[in-house]
């Protein structure tokens, strides 16, 4: 049995050509030293006001499930690829944390789908002309919530996710559309940064998604019906 995930079309790489850079030598004379100090202080002061960016990165284990003899196309919408959540500071009303989890979500599905299905083909668009696949799967995040210990007064970081999962025929006809929720929490620890707490909670939440998805996929009523009527049985 194959565990293949391949792209239908080659991706378009971004040209990272070098941009001209101007450099200037400067000597730190007393006058310029003062200017430099002021500039450094301004940068430090302003960095205290900026929202903290947290990029979720985690590795996921291979699920222990029986493989379905299906070729599934998967399309990751732009909204999922670029998904990020912004936590607002209650007191200032400004952005406090920006949590980017798109890449991690793609990595998660790229780990579990090839184990669940005979073959997985990544599609570049929500095309309705894919005769080589048995079904097209489109995951998307609908909601993301973050619980920080300083706000919830609990000694855990919490992340709650709500997904919309869609499975269609190769021609785009409906097979199933279902909602999945996931929850993850991680305990606080002395001297632990918010970044680490959020990362740990996100990893648990993502594993929860994977667990629910892999164990519950064939239990979704519409998918169950479709498999019984049209699809092969595991």
């Amino acid at each position, binding site marked *: 049995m194959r565990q293949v995930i391949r792209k239908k079309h080659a991706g378009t790489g971004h040209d990272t050509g070098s941009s001209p850079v101007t450099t200037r030598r400067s000597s730190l004379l007393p006058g310029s030293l003062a200017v430099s100090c002021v500039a450094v202080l301004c940068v430090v002061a302003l960095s205290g006001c900026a929202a903290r960016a947290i990029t979720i990165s985690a590795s996921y284990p*291979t699920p*222990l*499930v029986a493989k379905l003899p299906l070729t599934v196309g998967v399309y990751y919408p732009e909204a999922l690829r670029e998904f990020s959540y912004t936590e607002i500071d209650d007191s200032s009303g400004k952005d406090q944390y920006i949590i980017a989890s798109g890449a991690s979500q793609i990595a998660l599905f790229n780990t579990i789908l090839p184990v669940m299905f005979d073959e997985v083909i990544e599609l570049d668009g929500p095309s309705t002309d894919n005769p080589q696949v048995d079904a097209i799967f489109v995951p998307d995040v609908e909601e993301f919530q973050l619980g920080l210990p300083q706000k919830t007064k609990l000694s*855990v970081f919490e992340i709650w996710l709500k997904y919309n999962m869609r499975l269609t025929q190769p021609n785009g006809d409906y097979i199933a559309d279902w909602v999945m929720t996931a929850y993850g*929490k991680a*305990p606080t620890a002395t001297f632990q940064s918010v970044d680490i707490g959020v990362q740990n909670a996100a990893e648990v939440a993502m*594993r929860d998604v994977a*667990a*629910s998805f892999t164990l519950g996929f064939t239990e979704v009523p519409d998918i169950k019906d479709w498999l019984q009527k049209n699809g092969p049985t595991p």
Partner: protein
Amino acid sequence: MIRHEQVSGISTDKHESCNLLSRSGRSLQKLLPALTLAFALSACTTTEIDEFRQTATSISGDESIVILGRRQNNDYETEGNFIECVGSVVGSGDDGITVVPEKDFLNAMFPFFEPRTAPMRTGHLKQLMDIDIARQRIADFGIEYIVWVDGTTLRGETAGSVSCTIGPGGGGCFGFGTWVDDSNFDAEIWDMDTLDLAGSISTDANGQSYMPAVVVPIPLIARVEANACSGLGSQLKNFINGS
């Protein structure tokens, strides 16, 4: 002080330990001997262990156990560090038992032992063992017992304050703080041969810590969770070895 009682399958151990000869205590003795004695005598931990045995247990050299933390509760979760600590106690010594690391087991058994999908009762374990791929993976590990640990350490009765000042001529702290830590952990031992409960062990450890500060803050910490870990680990090892 150790008290041991045993009544028809249920036994209770009570153990009191103090940090009288801790490193911080010795430092304090050099500075303030009287204060050291007074506080060190008080910075004690009381650990009480209750054991309930349902069936006889034993384990051979090629068999192993796994210790897992329960993580279904809303407001706390059993810490991985505590599970590691208990595992290291169970695995140490001449009568040590092979313990499969929790993370390795969870990853290998994914997605069957995640917080949402883990078996909560032995009935669920029987259902899980009906799945060939899961049963085979457990057999590959040679796991004879699964131990579920559930609990946390709570801090309360916090009182006092310590304030510190730094000036051109130096700095220092003055004040007094105290708090009580209370560790409660329950362990359930599931027998993978009978797919039933073999027994359970509960550990309750508590102790009061002090932080006097006269120029330098001197923590007199009651090692509550560490004592809960060593108490639970030792009892668990004896339980599984059948001793």
